């Protein structure tokens, strides 16, 4: 699988890069738990002086700094780490393929992503479909994502038979996440590659937001790829505005404070790189463990890992 991926990008002239796994900055996203490490030490005095280092949750920030430095199109296959994520499709350490196409609109990168998936899976005829987040909720649940009240979202979750839906305390995105993961995701990408796109702006993460226009309300230019009910990839029309990025970091940290989560130092060097000028473009990250699961028909991520974390 790795050989096919490398051949795919070599043909297209995309450069393979390697960036640090350890960083002085972490991911501020409240939904991501950065793992942090320090040297083992016996002396409390030196412990205080130890510099905290974070294991990357994705190589995104370092790769964007390369883009800002004029690298051109780049890809990387690297290990990424997310605390607390363990399940049939989750493992705290996993392998990610991430690539960037400066100057590209996300629609073009989506086509390239679909090509790569068909090549790596060796299923050239695998059909594809694209559906927007709003259309998916409207068609499957009769929910207007942009207008539905919290009460309406809760009622929908109850009607869908999600246990405890009547008692859960969730914000708007929490309800949407619940409905997406419990009711919609399992049927996405059955026998085809399904691209879900145009997310609510509140779920933009690091994507650019397209303002409201004649096509409809403002949407985050973010997309995800699904196959056989499994989320394989997440991509963005990248946010390149340093001030907006800084504001999102601040919003993340305020949310972390409210939730009593650890405060994570935001990446000032990324902000500096964005301020210096990162070319506009698109990027996407693909989970290779899950892709391998689908390729070999595995049901649990442990089947594609040499040593799951409990035995690592």
């Amino acid at each position, binding site marked *: 699988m790795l050989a096919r991926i490398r051949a795919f990008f070599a043909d297209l002239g995309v450069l393979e890069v390697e960036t640090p796994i350890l960083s002085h900055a972490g991911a501020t*996203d409240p*939904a991501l738990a950065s793992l942090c490490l320090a040297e083992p030490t016996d002396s409390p005095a030196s412990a205080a002086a130890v510099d905290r280092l974070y294991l990357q949750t994705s190589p995104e920030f370092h790769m964007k700094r390369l883009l800002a430095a004029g690298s051109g199109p780049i890809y990387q296959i690297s290990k990424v780490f997310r605390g*607390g*994520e*363990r*399940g*049939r*499709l*989750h493992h705290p350490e996993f392998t990610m393929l991430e690539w960037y196409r400066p100057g590209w609109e996300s629609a073009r990168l989506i086509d390239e992503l679909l090509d790569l998936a068909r090549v790596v899976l060796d299923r050239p005829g695998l059909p594809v479909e694209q559906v927007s987040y709003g259309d998916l909720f409207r068609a499957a649940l009769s929910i207007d994502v942009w207008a539905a009240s919290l009460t309406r979202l809760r009622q929908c979750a109850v009607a869908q038979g*999600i*246990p*405890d*839906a009547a008692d*859960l*305390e*969730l914000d708007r*995105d*929490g309800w*949407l*996440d*619940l409905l*997406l*993961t*419990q009711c919609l*995701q399992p049927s996405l990408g059955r026998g085809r590659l399904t691209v879900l796109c145009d997310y609510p702006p509140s*779920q933009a*993460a690091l994507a650019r937001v397209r303002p409201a226009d004649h096509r409809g309300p403002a949407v985050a230019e973010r997309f*995800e790829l699904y196959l056989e009910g499994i*989320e394989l990839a*997440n991509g963005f029309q990248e946010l390149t505005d340093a001030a907006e990025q800084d504001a999102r970091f601040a919003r993340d940290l305020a949310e972390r404070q409210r939730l009593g989560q650890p405060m994570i130092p935001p990446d000032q060097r990324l902000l500096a790189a964005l301020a210096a000028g990162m070319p506009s473009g698109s990027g996407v990250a693909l989970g290779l463990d899950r892709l391998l699961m689908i390729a070999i028909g595995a049901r649990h991520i442990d089947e594609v890992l040499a040593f799951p974390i409990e035995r690592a």
Partner: protein
Amino acid sequence: MAFYSTNEFKGGLKIILDGDPYHIIENEFVKPGKGQAFNRVRIRNLKTGRVVEKTFKSGDTVEAADVHDTDMQYLYNDGEYWHFMDPASFEQMTADANAVGDAAKWIKEEDVCKVTLWNGVPLSVEAPNFVVLAITETDPGLKGDTSGGGGKPATLETGAIVRVPLFVQTGELIKVDTRTGDYVSRAKD
């Protein structure tokens, strides 16, 4: 009071919900690409045996239940309670009909049972997987029938009734699988 985070959820964990002890049968971690993660769990109420599904926001905590299993020897029944003894400490405990449940029809004195304790009190009792019991009453079978096809009911010394092959006679010892209530074979003492 101890608590578990949903990050620690796994099959076999014992938790307290609405005052009752539960055993986690299955835990599924679900998370969208970006955003709120959930734990979807199937749990069994250890008092009623009922299985229910629950949804937790990942990162929530629940109270841990002080529930553990221990092997104890069944001593006797006084008409109301079943008495058990810890074979190591010789400590004795009593379990009511609710806790003993189905195990009552399989166990006899000196059998070693798995007793589940909650805060030190027997919550449930599990009979050994296989028990050897004497048949106290069954219809005389046909001589020469060895096929076991058909079968007939037999009452055992504990009062349980199981289906046995026609050739098995009153007074004989038989081995029974307590999980299914099925006859396994004849047994020598």
